[in-house]
């Protein structure tokens, strides 16, 4: 490269008769001064270039020339613009850049549609997701049917791994949360009940609230954040990685192979976790009771006398359904995720939101039904 002393970059447009001439000089460096442009940029590609005073250059110079060529290029004109006068290395780069014509259709990607079109698209999307939930539920029932008749194929190892993940490994967090919930219920209850001198009824309050609602709902919310999200992320990356396609081409039903073990494991583990959460919550209440002067034995007797077997089984009954909701929304979003890492993140978010919403809606439904049935 000639001209070692740094000089400011300059582009000059001139006309030689009918022909457009572009003279470039100086050092075109990214970190240097911004290039100066003299004369009015022509509306035609330069017929030749003058580069006698051109110093060092990096990508900014070919980018400048290419940008001009692209602006003045007429649609449908495939003639290669002249590169006369460019030094060989720059000429080589320009030839390379111009070798593949611009993809004209490629530019027409995202167009801003009208509000009505957007509304229509949103409604169709909502309908499509309702349909996909219904379809997925149907597929799950069919898969359970196949499992019951022994025709579903999956590796029992997978099942036990999921059981461990969403069973034993969830115990620490479930313990902590339900212990604290029991503690909070007892504290808040005691403040109110103590003013009537009825502190002992804290045991009733904690017992019934835990086994009927709080134990199962808190466990379900923990599990949807912990396990539902993990299902969605795992299956989503498997999809992005074509692992699910690979299962299909070996004749495995991805539904049986991936969804069924997760669904079964969570539906089996949720009731156990719920029972455990109930016990830990009651223990938390008992500690608060001891602190405010209710002897543990008395607290225990009061709890046992109030919490009937029916009440206790209501929470456990609900936990089967919550487990199914968590597993299905996690797997559904994972199986329907897009093919990029961003899509996996979106799928995980949707799985957690959908399962928590589902749990709360289902729980209020159960509350209404149990009230009508008077249990």
């Amino acid at each position, binding site marked *: 490269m000639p001209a070692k002393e740094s000089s400011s970059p300059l582009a000059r447009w001139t006309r030689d008769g009918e022909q457009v001439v572009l003279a470039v000089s100086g050092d075109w460096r990214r970190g240097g001064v911004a290039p100066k442009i003299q004369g009015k940029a022509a509306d035609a590609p330069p017929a030749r270039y003058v580069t006698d005073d051109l110093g060092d250059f990096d*990508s900014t110079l*070919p980018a400048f020339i290419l940008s001009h060529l692209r602006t003045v290029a007429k649609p449908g004109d495939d003639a290669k613009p002249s590169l006369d006068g460019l030094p060989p290395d720059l000429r080589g780069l320009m030839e*390379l850049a111009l070798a593949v014509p611009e993809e004209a259709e490629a530019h027409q*990607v995202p167009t801003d549609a009208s509000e009505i079109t957007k509304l229509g698209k949103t409604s169709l999307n909502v309908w499509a997701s309702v349909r996909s939930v219904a379809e997925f539920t149907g597929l799950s029932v069919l898969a359970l049917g196949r499992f019951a008749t022994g025709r579903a194929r999956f590796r029992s190892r997978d099942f036990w791994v999921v059981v461990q993940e969403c069973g034993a490994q969830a115990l620490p967090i479930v313990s902590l949360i339900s212990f604290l919930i029991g503690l909070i219920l007892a504290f808040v209850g005691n403040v109110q009940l103590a003013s009537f001198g009825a502190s002992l009824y804290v045991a009733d309050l904690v017992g019934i609230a835990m086994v009927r609602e709080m134990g199962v709902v808190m466990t379900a919310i923990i599990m949807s954040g912990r396990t539902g999200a993990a299902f969605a992320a795992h299956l989503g990356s498997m999809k992005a990685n074509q692992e699910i396609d690979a299962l299909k081409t070996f004749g495995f039903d991805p539904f049986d192979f991936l969804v069924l073990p997760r669904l079964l494991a969570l539906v089996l583990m949720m009731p156990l976790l719920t029972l455990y959460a109930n016990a830990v919550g009651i223990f938390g209440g008992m500690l608060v009771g001891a602190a405010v002067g209710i002897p543990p034995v008395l607290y225990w007797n009061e709890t046992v006398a109030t919490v009937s077997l029916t009440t206790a089984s209501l929470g456990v009954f609900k936990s089967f359904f919550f487990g199914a909701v968590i597993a299905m929304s996690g797997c559904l979003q994972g199986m329907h995720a897009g093919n990029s890492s961003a*899509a996996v993140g979106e799928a995980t978010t949707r799985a957690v939101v959908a399962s928590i919403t589902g749990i709360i809606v289902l729980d209020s439904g159960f509350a209404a039904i149990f009230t009508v049935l008077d249990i």
Partner: protein
Amino acid sequence: MNQPPETAAKAKITVRDLTMAYDSFVVMRDLNFEVAEKDIFIIMGGSGCGKSTLLRHLIGLHEPAQGSIFYGNENFTAASPEDRVEFIKRFGVMYQSGALWSSLTLAENIALPLEENTALPPRTIRDLVSYKLALVGLSGYEDYYPAQISGGMNKRAGIARAMALDPEILFLDEPGAGLDPLSSRRLDDLILRLRDSLGSTIVIVTHELASIFAVANNSIFLDTVTRTQGAIGNPSELRDHSENPAVRLFLRRGEASEPSSASPS
């Protein structure tokens, strides 16, 4: 050992006694080689021999178990994290599968390093982005997301992003894999032109023989069996004259005899 040996004064990259290991598993030991300025240097060897691992060592994603890597006369291995950032700004890296950021469009992928590292006005950045995409034959795909284009296009866009800052040293991990022969040929052409026009030093991990003979002027062969370097030199010469039979076999696709149409470039 803070200075590379005197003989290597003009080398762009100097590797001294490098041992690569994952925990206690030694991948390669005692690697010693230099990459001269404006070299197109090929790292080759059988599958799983540690080609990509060597590349990861060179760009600082993996720490050597032993030995050092020098850029010019500066020790990269011993540099502090802050100094390393300065080294890394001089590199451009293309990863095996492109590794484009999936939440950004192609244009944004290339513009991000420019926006963060330079004070260029948006218009210039846009021109630079179009130019880099044009170089790899992707003009017009500015607003596409990586998930919307094919694997080969992702790869080319990855090269465009690696070139965003006109790096002194370009590292390409398997650039030709998954490309059709014509695109692969174009890529070789691009690599040669980049070296000639921008004076970049280019380090390529590959085992595509056609590309190796087309572009390389120096190379290192990693031997899976002995777990060290099998040979260093120009691939065409190694093919015909290497003393290591494994190297000759590799460069002749397993044919022991002289190939009938030897065409070193």
